[in-house]
């Protein structure tokens, strides 16, 4: 049976048929017909944001915490250009999004019409794929294909640009089952011979390490289960990138903590000295590798990734396996068990003994002394007071607080940690926390923020208040752009060019102005009570935590240095970064 309907109705019907329950958006001239259809139904909930960038980050938070694609609806021109940062963020972190943009009518395209922008042109490099739909008959099929492309293979954001006349015109609706999904069918099964070679290497390795990333999370919860089984059965150490936290539990016996520029001492040294590195769904990012020619010089490297372009992009891989993490781990486990579940016990024992020595350095050690709250202490207390809650989700903005959150908070499950990894988008965390809370209304959603990042999308306080979302904004307020300040201290002769937050608002009054609760805390003695007050309040809270202003984030691998040249604290920072390292970011 063919069904005739308008393009606008088709959009709503296609979203329903794709199982979409929530759309984050902002209306405007070029999407009015779609908004009119949204008005006349109740199956899809529309969340009105305060800025289109916020809509995209909310959809990212929604997608990361549910594993389902996030959906955004914005208007043409500025609506679309405001979405660009979020799209780029989602592309870098492989987050599935379907973004619908309005466009001027087809007969006005190219005429510099009001609110016209070349949306598909602008978003081509920051989407996995995008479409301009010029005929209503093509619209529903394109939406179904968009969901397919966004979620299959390495996930990513896609965009559909829909001219206003296409929304008004009538056309034939194509249901998902009948849609032509094109030829996009990424390979998910790994090469059996390379998997066998990796299992053999696993059996004999003296100093193995699992290095896992966001690909494990994206592959689904089954991937995390398989990872846990493999790591615990082999007894091998595991570290993870910022994106992969939670795939293996922080309380797990074999957990070394995060690796990379601000990763843990034991994790980075183990990466440097290992003889077998098993990269599962990570991409050898420059925050991870440090200096390339000195990266883990003695190891055989295996790399499991669904995206063939990740393999050999940065680091030469000995055992490349293109495939979905779940499939490959299943095959690996099966084969390893078939062959008798062997490991090099003697080698592993010595390896763990060395790792224990590195752990004994206690690289995250700090002392809370004096009348000012240390940011590490604030997060350690937040962790202690919330870690028992299985429904705790943590988002972050970008900067020192983000690294401290990754260091001092423990993640037990996948999809409970939302942070902007690849793009490093300040202003990500607050809207992301709203997206998470929408998807999990009863959960404890906390955004660990810095005051500078948080101000970048603070208008979303209106969204949080409107939908009575009890998101907790835990702002570590040092009145500085902390990470910028830290680099200026280490690299630019302590000339703190524009890295302080002047003219800050009174965050308590600001929260109250939006109808939210504001809490300020500056005394370490009051901290626990204040945090509990925040958690127990049934509504949005802005927590202004005044912290030590000049605290630096350690450990740190200085730019241009390998893993074994980590800085552990203030005493080791003098002249740590050479002139060559200074040109890096």
């Amino acid at each position: 049976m063919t069904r005739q309907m308008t393009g606008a109705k088709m959009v709503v019907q296609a979203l329903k048929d794709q199982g979409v329950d929530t759309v984050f958006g902002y209306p405007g001239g070029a999407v009015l017909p779609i908004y009119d259809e949204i008005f006349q139904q109740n199956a899809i909930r529309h969340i009105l944001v305060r800025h289109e960038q916020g809509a995209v980050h909310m959809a990212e938070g929604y997608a990361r915490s549910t594993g389902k694609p996030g959906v955004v609806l914005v208007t043409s021109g500025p609506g679309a250009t405001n979405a660009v940062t979020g799209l780029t963020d989602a592309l870098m972190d492989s987050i599935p999004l379907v973004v619908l943009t309005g466009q001027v009518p087809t007969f006005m395209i190219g005429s510099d019409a009001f609110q016209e922008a070349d949306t598909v042109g602008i978003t081509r490099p920051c989407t996995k794929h995008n479409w301009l739909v010029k005929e209503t008959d093509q619209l529903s099929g394109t939406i179904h294909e968009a969901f397919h492309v966004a979620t299959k293979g390495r996930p990513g954001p896609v965009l559909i640009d829909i001219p206003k006349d296409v929304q008004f015109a009538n056309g034939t609706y194509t249901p998902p089952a009948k849609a032509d999904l094109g030829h996009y069918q990424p390979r998910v099964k790994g090469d059996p011979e390379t998997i066998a070679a990796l299992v053999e290497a696993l059996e004999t390795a003296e100093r193995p390490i699992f290095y896992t990333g966001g690909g494990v999370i994206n592959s689904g919860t089954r991937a995390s289960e398989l990872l846990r089984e493999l790591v615990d059965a082999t007894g091998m150490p595991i570290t993870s990138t910022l994106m992969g936290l939670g795939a293996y539990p922080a309380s797990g016996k074999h957990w070394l903590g995060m690796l990379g520029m601000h990763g843990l001492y034991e994790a980075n040294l183990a990466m440097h000295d290992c003889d077998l590195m098993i990269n599962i769904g990570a991409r050898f990012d420059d925050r991870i590798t440090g200096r390339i020619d000195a990266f883990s010089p003695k190891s055989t490297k295996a790399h499991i990734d669904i995206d063939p372009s990740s393999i050999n992009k940065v680091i030469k891989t000995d055992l490349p396996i293109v495939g979905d993490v779940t499939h490959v781990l299943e095959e690996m486990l099966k084969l390893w068990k078939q062959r008798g579940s062997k490991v090099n016990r003697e080698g592993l024992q010595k390896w763990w003994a060395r790792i224990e020595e590195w752990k004994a350095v206690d690289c995250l050690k700090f002392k809370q002394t004096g009348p000012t709250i240390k940011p590490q202490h604030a997060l350690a207390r937040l962790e202690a007071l919330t870690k028992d809650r299985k429904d705790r989700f943590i988002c972050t903005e970008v900067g020192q607080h983000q690294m401290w959150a990754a260091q001092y908070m423990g993640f037990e499950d996948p999809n409970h940690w939302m942070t902007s990894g690849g793009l490093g988008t300040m202003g990500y965390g607050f809207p992301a926390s709203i997206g998470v809370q929408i998807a999990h209304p009863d959960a404890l959603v906390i955004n660990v923020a810095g005051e500078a990042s948080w101000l970048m999308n603070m208008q979303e306080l209106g969204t949080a208040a409107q939908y009575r979302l009890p998101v907790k904004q835990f702002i570590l307020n040092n009145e500085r752009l902390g990470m910028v300040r830290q680099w200026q201290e280490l690299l630019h002769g302590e000339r703190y060019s524009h890295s302080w937050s002047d003219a800050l608002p009174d965050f308590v009054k600001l929260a109250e102005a939006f109808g939210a609760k504001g809490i300020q805390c500056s005394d370490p003695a009051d901290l626990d009570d204040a945090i509990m007050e925040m958690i127990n309040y049934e509504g949005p809270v802005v927590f202004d935590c005044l912290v030590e202003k000049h605290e630096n984030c350690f450990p740190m691998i200085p730019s241009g240095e390998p893993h074994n040249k980590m800085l552990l604290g203030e005493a080791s920072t003098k002249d740590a970064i050479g002139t060559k390292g200074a040109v890096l970011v």
Partner: protein
Amino acid sequence: MAPLKIKKGSSKHSAYNLRSNFSDVQERHTLTVMVDNEAGVLARVIGLFSGRGYNIDSLTVAEVDHEGHLSRITIVTTGTPQVIEQIKAQLGRLVPVHDVHDLTVEGATVERELALMRVEGTGEKRVEALRLADIFRANVVDSTLDSFTFQITGTQEKVDAFADLMRPLGMTDIARTGVAALSRAS
């Protein structure tokens, strides 16, 4: 905790110096890419090359299957072996791309380019141009009393050689198509 002592200026390499693990030899490869013939597909391919800093020496594109909406893009590019592999993988993950073949490593190929050249002159120069065209099997496709337009097909090297000869003989204009290539039948 024991501080690590790091000497000033000890970083010898930039973290963006990503090629150190790989060979530095620049290679020239001819890639052929089958794509859906849809709006923006060429922009996607070109944007990929400019956005990631790859070279395009030559690019040829035209629809080859009208019913199947397929176009063939032939790209000649240069880069280290690692960069060439990246280019292929990056092209392969574009959604409208059906397949990518590296003709340079996949055995014998036929590569041809077509060029049109206008050569203006009279007397001995005009006769010499015609004589050389005959040697190169270039055809005269347009003529006035004081000019010829030659059409030549062949490898890029042959077209280059012919253009080098025509320049002193009065070549005023040249148009080249870029390389089209197919693997040889086995």
